[in-house]
């Protein structure tokens, strides 16, 4: 969007406005950054320094003891192994859940956009509403179901839950993307003799890379950051890292070790932050795509 003004204000006024503009923007940037900076600084100090100094005072020495403790020996609830086992749990939940929900979403989107049948649009609308329901409405029945299926408190159970409630979003993403693919492409391929899966694999999938990246990033962030399902459906040793972090912070044996809390929080945030830094463009695209429902 261009911002040319025909009636140029005087140069001085213009400069003053520009400086004010940058001041506001940079101040806001500092405010957004501040919590993370404080977390980082705090995690590097020792308990005594934290007590005597302020939030923004720099650590006198660079100490990574609190990181080590957070990773491998801090107490989360009943056990004292740090958050590393839960960090790995999160990966064990996230990776299969992302893979399965993305694949299902791709196939669903393919059908809804390019192999429409009677009622497929209606079903899509019903699925869309699923993106919005407050999960509190399904928590208890799902807990019972997981029990019946014998996968309560297991990683498998959490993967199942994340797939079930993630597939609405992944379907939405792929459906919107495939909407722009001309139906004639599928017709041409059918006349050429290709079947349902051949068309998907040979023609549709190769052009889907951008939306796959967006979906994978979206799902990864959503599932990694989940707390509700984690706290409701996991057992002691299958907790995801968010649950473990919350337990660690709320466990009070002796004095509060804010440096360990902060180190653990940064560790828990690292994977999604890394994805954001490395693939920010796709991350934003996923957010806005998820926002512009349908």
């Amino acid at each position, binding site marked *: 969007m261009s911002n040319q003004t025909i009636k140029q204000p005087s140069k001085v006024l213009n400069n003053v406005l520009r400086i004010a503009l940058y001041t506001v923007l940079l101040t806001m940037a500092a405010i957004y950054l501040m919590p993370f900076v404080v977390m980082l600084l705090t995690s590097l100090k020792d308990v005594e320094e934290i007590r005597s100094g302020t939030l923004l005072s720099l650590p006198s020495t660079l100490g990574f003891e609190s990181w080590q403790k957070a990773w491998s020996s801090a107490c989360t609830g009943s056990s004292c192994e740090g958050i590393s086992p839960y960090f790995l749990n999160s990966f064990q939940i996230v990776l299969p859940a992302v893979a399965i929900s993305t694949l299902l979403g791709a196939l669903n989107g393919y059908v809804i956009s390019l192999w429409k049948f009677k009622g497929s649009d209606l079903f899509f609308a019903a699925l869309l509403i699923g993106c919005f329901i407050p999960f509190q409405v399904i928590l208890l029945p799902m807990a019972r179901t997981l029990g019946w299926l014998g996968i309560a408190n297991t990683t498998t159970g959490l993967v199942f839950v994340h797939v079930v409630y993630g597939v609405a979003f992944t379907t939405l993403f792929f459906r919107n993307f495939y909407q722009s693919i*001309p139906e*004639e*492409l599928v*017709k*041409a*391929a*059918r*006349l*050429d*003799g*290709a*079947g349902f899966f*051949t068309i998907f694999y*040979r*023609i549709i999938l*190769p*052009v889907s890379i951008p939306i796959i990246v967006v979906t994978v990033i979206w799902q990864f962030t959503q599932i990694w950051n989940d707390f509700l399902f984690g706290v409701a459906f996991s057992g002691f040793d299958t907790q995801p890292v968010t649950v473990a972090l919350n337990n660690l912070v709320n466990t009070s044996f002796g004095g509060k070790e804010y440096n360990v809390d902060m180190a653990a929080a940064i560790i828990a945030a690292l994977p999604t932050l890394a994805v954001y830094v490395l693939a920010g463009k796709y991350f934003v695209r996923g957010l806005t795509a998820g926002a512009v429902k349908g």
Partner: protein
Amino acid sequence: MANLVIDNVKKRYGDTEILKGINISIAAGEFLILVGPSGCGKSTLMNSIAGLEEVSEGSILIADQDVTHSSPKDRDIAMVFQSYALYPNMTVAQNISFGLEMRKVPKEERDVEVERVAELLQINHLLNRKPAQLSGGQRQRVAMGRALARRPQLYLFDEPLSNLDAKLRVEMRTEIKKLHKKLGTTIVYVTHDQVEAMTLADRIAVMRDGEVQQLGTPQEIYDNPANLFVAGFMGSPAMNFIPATVVTGDDGAMLELATPNKTLLPFPKHESLQPYLGKSLLLGLRPEMITEPQAHKEGQKYVTTTAIEVEVTEPMGADTMVITRINNAEVNCRSNPAYPADAGSVINMMFDTSKAVVFNPTTGERVDV
């Protein structure tokens, strides 16, 4: 090459009938063009022939085989789409050979076939490019190449030239005509461009509201339209429809026009007008049948010269359209640019009614048959 029989094909979506019993039969090697306004069912008919849509009733035979319920891939049909529908992730060569690959043709044979088709369409230099790197005209050629590669029994063209600019469209039109002559393929071709229809077709089927209005050679459709709709649809500028009263004159029933001096036009099949004496009918007269007075036609039987008032003129180069108003209907006349015809003036024009047709204004049907 194969013949195609469409036998009483109907297609319904719920309560709406898109195709209302289509009967078309074309011989092997024939070039059939489907024309009609959008929504007339021509695309549905194409999809039905291709097997992309199931018909509700009736049957379709290709090469005397009933394929009504066969899947698209078993019908041995190739289709060229308006949007070309090239596979974006494949090179031109892969696009052309994909259909053969699906039919499990060995790699060596496929390569030979790609060579042959590329040669035929002069796209050898494009074989390793992706569709995104091609111009509109090149994509069009590749789309045709993909269809040709499989040597199917029947070709379907769905408005293949409508995305090209005017110049390229004329070139490709000629090319398609040459290809058809050379290969003798059976082709069903949808278009809304009447020039394409007139120049390419062996036969034209004019469709409206899911029905075939008329099926015939281009000249038959042009000279002898079955009804008002067909007459108005084919030809540019369109045929003039002039309300005229049937009166008795020197040549039996004649048509009276309210020109500045009342004009009586003779009509070849005047007997057919007899029942309508005193009533108003629609006279269908192509613009080229109303010209400046031409010496060589003077005195011919169905030629009448009369004065008209010029409303406006549209010079087209080769000739000038003179527009007048008769019985409150706008009438296009094709006149020589050298003939003086200023807006507002009254000039003499020559009406040739030897090929005129007459329609019933309420039903739209021909009355002179």
